[in-house]
């Protein structure tokens, strides 16, 4: 009789629900007739994401004190479940956005991969040791590699998949190397065990930590590890891009916060500076490069690099306030990101070609709901008041100011000023035509089909973007509960 470790099934349930949805969808791809396959896959994935969100909420509620489960391989705490809820809701939105695309092949596989990688992310954010972390990272990454390349008839999509695969594997390699060095120096795999182990002054240990940070920075797409981001975001199917920009960032950033604070608190003088340097590089490169873009997806890709910068500032604060700022910021950020890519997807389906700034022209008047929503999303990304993006930035700045790094506030403010150049360019394209108000509108392929699920997703994203401004307090209270599970000193 082999003795099995006790398994906390409730802690695993959010991941398992998504895995089950993935398996059922995949099965459906084989046995459900083609005509019903889309509806079947969509319904199953929606059910999967909803179940995960609810289960993660339940685990959040019942995990006041963090505990290590399944032989220290994962942590059951409020931080992980908080992130899991965000990821599940992002997934819901992405499924709704995906319904309307005219995909003919791989319908079942698409949703199966989407739910499978979301399951990986949900597991990833609760990882409690280096092995589960790496396993989960590969788990969701492989799903994303395939999703990027799923539009096999488009060269850009294949290119995106290949680039992401190569660069992503390189990142994973670095991460794994870092894990090996840390394990070598301490003989421990668990995050909290690493912190207690001796041998922390070993240079190899510090090198390992740096490599882990670099590997995670690939997933966060923080500069200078962002090289893959613009091409992949541009080439991947738009809903997948939205999923990567929102959910992957949530997962990678939350885990970065977790591992740095749990495993490497003794080295915080080193990693806060490293994270701040990544943040500054991301802000500078992301914003300057975004200004030069005409393709909206590419622009949003660079904008996501610059957001990585803001979010890393919150981590660099190395305080509870910083953690809360990170978690709060992620809410309006993911909502605005999903929403913005949803509008881009709608325009793309309407025009059947890539969306550039010029091709957004007039959208605001033709389809006011989508136009006004996209306006709100970019205002949120730019940190304008009346959107959660403003309070997110404010919270990040306050946290880093409290940590004593006032100059990062100045850099953040300058970056925000710079970012207006391209965010307002989107608003300009939506509503202002150089040729004159009331001129002929761009008519392409007749009246676009009403895409109700997509509109629902955009509406929900809009509600979250603006609602997170007015109802900041309850959200921050939740974030506070989540951060309380981290051992900040």
């Amino acid at each position, binding site marked *: 009789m082999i003795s099995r470790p006790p398994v906390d099934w409730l802690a695993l349930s959010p991941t398992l629900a998504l895995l089950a949805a993935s398996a059922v969808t995949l099965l459906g791809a084989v046995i459900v007739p083609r005509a019903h396959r889309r509806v079947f896959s969509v319904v199953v994935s929606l059910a999967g994401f909803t179940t995960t969100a609810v289960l993660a909420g339940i685990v959040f509620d019942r995990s006041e004190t963090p505990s290590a489960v399944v032989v220290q391989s994962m942590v059951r705490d409020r931080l992980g479940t908080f992130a899991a809820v965000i990821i599940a809701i992002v997934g819901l939105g992405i499924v709704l956005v995906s319904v309307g695309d005219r995909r003919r092949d791989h319908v079942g596989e698409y949703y199966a991969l989407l739910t499978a990688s979301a399951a990986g992310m949900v597991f990833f954010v609760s990882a409690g040791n280096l092995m589960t972390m790496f396993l989960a990272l590969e788990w969701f990454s492989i799903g994303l590699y395939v999703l990027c390349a799923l539009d096999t008839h488009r060269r850009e999509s294949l290119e995106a998949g290949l680039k992401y695969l190569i660069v992503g594997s390189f990142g994973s390699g670095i991460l794994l190397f870092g894990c090996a060095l840390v394990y070598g120096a301490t003989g421990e795999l668990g995050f909290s065990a690493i912190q207690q182990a001796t041998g922390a002054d070993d240079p190899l240990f510090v090198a390992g930590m740096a490599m882990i940070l670099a590997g995670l920075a690939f997933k966060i797409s923080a500069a200078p590890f962002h090289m893959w981001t613009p091409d992949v975001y541009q080439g991947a199917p738009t809903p997948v891009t939205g999923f990567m920009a929102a959910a992957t960032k949530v997962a990678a950033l939350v885990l970065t916060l977790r591992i740095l604070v749990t495993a490497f608190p003794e080295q915080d003088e080193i990693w806060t500076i490293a994270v701040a340097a990544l943040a500054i590089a991301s802000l500078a490169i992301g914003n300057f490069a975004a200004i030069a873009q005409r393709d909206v997806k590419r622009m949003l890709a660079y904008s996501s690099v610059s957001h990585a910068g803001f979010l890393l500032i919150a981590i660099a604060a190395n305080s509870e306030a910083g953690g809360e700022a990170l978690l709060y910021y992620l809410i309006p950020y993911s909502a605005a990101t999903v929403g913005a890519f949803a509008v881009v997807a709608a325009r793309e389906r309407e025009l059947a070609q890539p969306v550039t700034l010029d091709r957004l022209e007039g959208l605001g*008047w033709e389809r006011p709901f989508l136009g006004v929503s996209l306006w709100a999303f970019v205002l949120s990304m730019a940190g*304008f008041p009346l959107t959660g993006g403003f309070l997110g930035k404010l919270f990040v700045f306050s946290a880093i100011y409290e940590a004593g790094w006032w100059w990062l506030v100045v850099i953040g*403010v300058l970056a925000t000023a710079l970012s*207006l150049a391209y965010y307002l360019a989107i608003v300009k394209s939506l509503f*202002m035509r150089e040729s004159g108000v009331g001129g002929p509108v761009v008519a392409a392929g007749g009246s676009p089909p009403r895409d109700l699920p997509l509109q629902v997703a955009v509406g929900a994203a809009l509600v979250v973007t603006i609602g997170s401004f007015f109802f900041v307090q309850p959200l921050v209270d939740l974030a506070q509960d989540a951060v309380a599970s981290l051992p900040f000193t």
Partner: protein
Amino acid sequence: MLTTLLIAVPLAGALLVWILPLQRESTAWLALLAALAEVGLWLGSIRNFEFGSDAQQYSASREWFDQLGISYAVGLYGFQYWLVGLTVVVGACAIGYGAWAERERARAYFGLMLFLVGALVGVFAAQDLILFYVFFEAMLIPIYVLVGVWGGPGRVKATVTFVIYTMAGSLLMLAAIVAFGISQGTFLLADIGTSSNDWIFFGFLVAFAVKAPLLPFHGWLRAAYTEAPPEVAAILSGVVSKAAVFGLVWIVLPHFPQPVDDFRDLVLVLAAATLVYGSVLAFRQPDARGVIAYSSMAQMGLIVLGIFASNDLGLDGAVLHSVNHGVVSAALFLVCGMIETRAGTGEFAGLGGMAKGRPILATMVMALGMFTLAVPGSTNFAGEFSILAGVFARGWGYAAVGAAAIVLAALYALRFISAVLHERRGSAVREETGDLVGGELTLVVPLVAILAALSVWPAAVSERSFPADQPAAFLGAQGAEGTGP
């Protein structure tokens, strides 16, 4: 409660206009109704407003974001009450103008106008730094679109320049607010105390200097005021620039006494330079709106002189003159719009000779011109005199420059009057070009009437702006007795 209502009524109106699928005309009426309800609300509260009391009136406060100590706190003192009044009155006239001019895309347009009015009221009523910043930024959103969509041929460039200038200023202010608020543990203006940090002071100062604008920060002004639709230009120069007045009076003076004292001469010199520079440029402009734009800049310089004199005379004068200038420049922009609709141009080359056969237009332009040049007996004269008397206590040189600028004001105002009304009939003015009609008069006459009433009784505003009419003591300003010459 009333303050919250004053903010909420236009915002609710904006939402209604956006949501209800009404035709253009009904939309315009609905918007006007909301704007007039706002004016009524304000007027109705005047009887119960205790101007002399040193307690905030109609205040409301609610926790909003505990972790950072941010709350929704609004309330009014006398000077804020007048600025709010300026906003609602000018806002109603501007919306009326939009209705009269039959703006395209009515639902978007009127919704944005109402939103702008609500945000402006919020700016003037805010008692929490973050809330102030929220409204300060929120008003940029409608302005960006209003200028960029309904403006003249160069509108997109104008609006982008405006937003970039303003945002550059206000983001520095955000950094200053974060630094100030976090180090004090609260963002409530009532509790936040004072700071002697020069950097924080400059963060605020630059934001307001852009908004006013003061001399090196005025690059956005000409294009924004001439490319915007006239009624938006009226709000921009009449009301939006007063956000700078509010910020300087209510944030900078009381909370940064030491830096204000240290850099007083710098600001006074900039303000005086703005006054002279604006006046000279106003005299040189080839078009009607250019003159008003730069005259507006000059008047803002004068108001800042009064504020940084920071004695009783200077501050009372600054508030009075803010109201005067707000009303007069808004009225002038509206009249300019009416002239442009008739002539198709605002260039002086095409205008002229409009007085003959158009007595009402002539009377209005003449009257507004007289107020602009601050003819003795007018409320503008009272305001300017009070400011100059106040700043005299800080140095006779500033008062001398200010007095000289009043002469310049006479020059450009008279040139404006004669270029529009007199001289040979311009190429763009036809014999049958009409006089002002009823609808237009209902927009301009109330504004002129307000100016006339204030001329009779300027103390209505100037003595009722600060508790016990002692602004310097109330704002904790230091030095210089406010007795004047």
